[in-house]
């Protein structure tokens, strides 16, 4: 039986693993990938010590740091957590693991538009990850849906590839610093107060139907990047721990959930701000609380 299983290897999970390794705990770090949403960032400019670093490069540093403590990431996707005698059983697709404590740091995944055409054209013009899919849109016209920091981040990824970028938003809510930067990119056209109704095409995307000032029209684009926020990855524990109305895990000041022995950290929790540096700090807090819990 493990002392601790950490689910997720974003900034919260990685920091928790580093602290757990320093405490010489018998633990498992389980995740589908390393870095989580950090790897999707064009430029991370607010992580102390690393100004203007790309998300990919920050993930490389995270990986290196884990290696220095000989922490290996067990590739896996937690499907369920069950209560057992003296702890918990974490169930994955192919195996189950027993542990005394758990830290859930499973992060978030992109929110979908839930409009006609979105699912049909996934991988045929509809994308949720600009860092993964930008090269496919070399010389093409694209629409980025969303007005937050992530949407503007997608603009910076695509500006080296796309011919024309429409930023389709209801409101621009990104940081002013980023808005100023996109104004300097000539190929970007911002469409405000605009609603996206449908993604159209034959074998691949040929346009999006939008509504602006009560009038509908088709915007001719070959790519649609959906950047309208994230939803927490909590489905696998929604019958076990208490969630808030946004389906985030409710934690106390020690990162404990309503189930003693289950802790949570990072974007998956109800902690207000979702930032890399905050998630890292929360991961540290969670593992120190788990350590105290085990000593009781």
């Amino acid at each position, binding site marked *: 039986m493990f002392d601790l299983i950490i689910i997720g290897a974003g900034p919260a999970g990685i920091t928790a693993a580093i602290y757990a390794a320093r405490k010489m705990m018998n633990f498992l770090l389980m995740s*589908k*990938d*390393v*870095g*989580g949403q*950090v*790897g*999707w960032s064009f430029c991370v400019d607010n992580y102390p010590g690393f100004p203007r670093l790309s*998300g*990919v490069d920050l*993930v490389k540093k995270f990986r290196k740091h884990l290696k220095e403590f000989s922490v290996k990431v067990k*590739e896996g996707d937690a499907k369920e957590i069950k209560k057992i005698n003296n702890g918990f059983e974490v169930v994955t697709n192919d195996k189950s693991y027993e542990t005394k404590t758990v830290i859930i740091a499973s992060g978030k995944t992109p929110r979908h538009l839930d409009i006609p055409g979105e699912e049909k054209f*996934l*991988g*045929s*013009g509809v*994308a949720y*990850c600009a*860092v*993964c*899919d930008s*090269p*496919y*849109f*070399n010389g093409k016209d694209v629409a980025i849906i969303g007005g937050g920091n992530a949407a503007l981040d997608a603009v910076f990824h695509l500006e080296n590839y796309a011919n024309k970028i429409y930023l389709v938003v209801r409101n621009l809510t990104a940081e002013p610093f980023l808005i100023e930067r996109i104004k300097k990119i000539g190929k970007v056209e911002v469409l405000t107060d605009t609603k996206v109704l449908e993604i159209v095409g034959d*074998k*691949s995307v040929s346009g999006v139907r939008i509504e602006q000032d009560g009038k509908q029209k088709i915007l001719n684009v070959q*790519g649609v990047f959906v950047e309208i926020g994230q939803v927490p990855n909590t489905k696998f524990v929604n019958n076990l721990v208490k969630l808030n109305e946004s389906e985030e895990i409710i934690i106390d000041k020690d990162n404990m959930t309503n189930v003693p022995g289950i802790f949570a950290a990072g974007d998956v929790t109800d902690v207000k701000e979702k930032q890399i540096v905050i998630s890292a700090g929360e991961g540290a807090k969670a593992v120190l609380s788990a350590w105290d819990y085990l000593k009781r």
Partner: protein
Amino acid sequence: MIVKIFSMKECPKCASAKKFKKQLDEGGIKAEIYDVKTVDGLAEATLFGIMGTPSVVVVDDSNKEMKTWRSELPSMKEIKELAEKNV
């Protein structure tokens, strides 16, 4: 039968693509991995209408498309079933 895997060095979702290629190699299934950031990789992806990473296209010996997974990886079980059918 050849399994073509479309991936990209910088793609945070693509770590599993490399492992998938290794699994295929170990299982004796012919597989090729393409980086879509390279000219050749992107050209190959375009040939099969791939616009998302990671994606997988399985072709027969005459390079005819048998099955495609867009912006996702199939399981080894799915590939083995396809290989059995191809035999």
